[in-house]
C-alpha cells in the first residue's frame, strides 16, 4: 500500500488504472491568430516523451470538415482519439447531404462539451486545443483546455505559448494583417518559443485557413542565432569556481 502512495506512476489499484493520470507523449505550444482572410496557426512537429524528443514528425494540426482547422498540444494519443470522434461527427454531418456543414463555432462547441464531460468523469483528454476557421466570411478562433475552459479571441496560444507568445501578439497584432505580416508575426512567436521552451523542436508547420480551404505548409526550420560572444567562452567569468 505504501509503495503505491509513494510511486503513483507504478502499480495503481485496479479502480484507478482506467483513467489518465499524466500525459506521456506530448506536443508543446500551438499559436494562432486571425488575419485579413482567415486564421493562421503554427505548431512545431515535436512529440516529447518526458524529456526525450522522441518523435520529430508529428502533425499537430489537422483540417476538420470544410471550414475548420484544429491544433492540439498535450497528449498526442488523446489528440488522435479526438480526431476519431471528429471524423465520426463530420461523417454524420456529411451523410445528411443537406447542403449545410458544421462550422468552426459548432466544432468548438462540440469539443468543449467532449472535454468538459471527460473532465467530469475524472478521465480527461489531456489536450489544449486551438480551433480556427472561416465560414461564410466569419472568422472564428477559439481555444478549449483539458478541463473544458473555452473562449474565443483574436489570437490564442497554448502551453508556453500563452506565457511567451501572447504578450508579443497583444503588442503587435492588429485587425487586417496581411498573410505575410501574419506569418512573420507567428514566426517571431515560434522563434521565441524555440529559444525558450525546452520541448520545442526547430521543425514547424504553418497552417492557413480561409474561405477557400485549408493549406498546411511543408515542415521547415526557423533561422536561429547562437553567435553571442558570451557563448564563446562561457566560463570566462567563473574559472576554477569549484
Amino acid at each position, binding site marked *: 500500500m505504501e509503495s503505491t502512495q509513494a510511486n503513483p506512476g507504478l502499480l495503481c489499484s485496479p479502480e484507478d488504472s482506467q483513467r489518465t493520470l*499524466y*500525459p506521456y507523449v*506530448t506536443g508543446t505550444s500551438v499559436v494562432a491568430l486571425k488575419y485579413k482572410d482567415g486564421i493562421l496557426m503554427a505548431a512545431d512537429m515535436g512529440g516529447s516523451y518526458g524529456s526525450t524528443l522522441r518523435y520529430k514528425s508529428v502533425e499537430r494540426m489537422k483540417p476538420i470538415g470544410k471550414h475548420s482547422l484544429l491544433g492540439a*498540444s*498535450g497528449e498526442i494519443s488523446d489528440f488522435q482519439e479526438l480526431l476519431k470522434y471528429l471524423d465520426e461527427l463530420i461523417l454524420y454531418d456529411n451523410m445528411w447531404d443537406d447542403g449545410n456543414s458544421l462550422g468552426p463555432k459548432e466544432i468548438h462547441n462540440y469539443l*468543449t462539451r467532449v*472535454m*468538459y464531460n471527460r*473532465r*467530469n468523469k475524472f478521465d480527461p483528454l*489531456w*489536450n*489544449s486545443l486551438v480551433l480556427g476557421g472561416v465560414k461564410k466570411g466569419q472568422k472564428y478562433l477559439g*481555444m478549449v*483546455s*483539458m*478541463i*473544458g*475552459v*473555452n*473562449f*474565443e*479571441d483574436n489570437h*490564442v496560444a*497554448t*502551453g508556453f505559448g*500563452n*506565457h511567451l507568445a*501572447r504578450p508579443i501578439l497583444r503588442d503587435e497584432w492588429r485587425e487586417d494583417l496581411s498573410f505575410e505580416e501574419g506569418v512573420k508575426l507567428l514566426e517571431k512567436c515560434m522563434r521565441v518559443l524555440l529559444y525558450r521552451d525546452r*520541448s520545442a523542436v526547430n521543425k514547424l508547420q504553418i497552417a492557413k485557413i480561409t474561405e477557400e480551404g485549408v493549406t498546411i505548409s511543408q515542415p521547415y526550420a526557423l533561422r536561429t542565432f547562437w553567435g553571442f560572444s558570451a557563448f564563446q567562452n562561457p566560463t570566462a567569468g567563473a574559472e576554477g569556481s569549484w
Partner: protein
Amino acid sequence: MEDEQTTFLTLLSVVAIAGADYCVVAADTRMSTGYSILTRGYSKICKLADKSFMASSGFQADVKALQKHLSAKHLIYQHQHNKQMSCPAMAQLLSNTLYYKRFFPYYAFNVLGGLDNEGKGCVFTYDAVGSYERVGYSAQGSGSTLIMPFLDNQLKSPSPLLLPAVDAVTPLSEGEAIDLVKTVFASATERDIYTGDRLEIVVLNADGTRYEYMELRKD
C-alpha cells in the same frame, strides 16, 4: 500540457444592484488562470430570460454548462407556458439546479439580477450549492471582499429582520447606481489581480435592456 492546471479558476468580480424600477448587473471581462490572462474580452453575463440576467464567477467550464442548462430549461418553459420565466422563478430554478449537484458541485458563484413581476429590481445572490437570498445588492468573485463592504456602506441595506419589512432596493437613481458600479470596479481593479480589462454593465428597466462598457486597467 506539461502539468495539470491546478489553478483553473477565473475568479473575477460580479456585482448587481437592485433599484426601485431598474436593475444593474455588472462584471469585468477578464478570464485568467493562475497568474496568466487567457483573454480580455470574455463576457460573464448571460441573459437567461427577458428579465433575468445571471453573472457568475468561478470555474468557467462549470459556469458555461450551468448557463446552457438553464437556457435549455427556460426554452422548454416557454414552449409549455407561452411566456417568459419571471426573475423570482428563474432564481428558484437556479437554486434547484445548483443543489442537484450538491455532491459534485458546479464551481460557480452566481448573482442573478432582473425585474420582478411588478417591475421592481431584484437581485438574488447564491453560493456554489444553491443557497440563495433576495437582496438589494450583491458582489461575488475575487473582488467581492473588496467590493461588498463598500456597497454596504453606500447602499445601507436595511436589516431583513425588521418588522414591518423594509424594502431592500436602493433609493439611488439608475444613473447613480451605474456610477457606483463603475467606481466600485475601478477600485477593485487596483487591488485585485483577477479584475480588470473591461467592465460590462447590463441595465434592465421598464424600457428594456441596455449594455454599457467601460475600460478598466489592464495590468
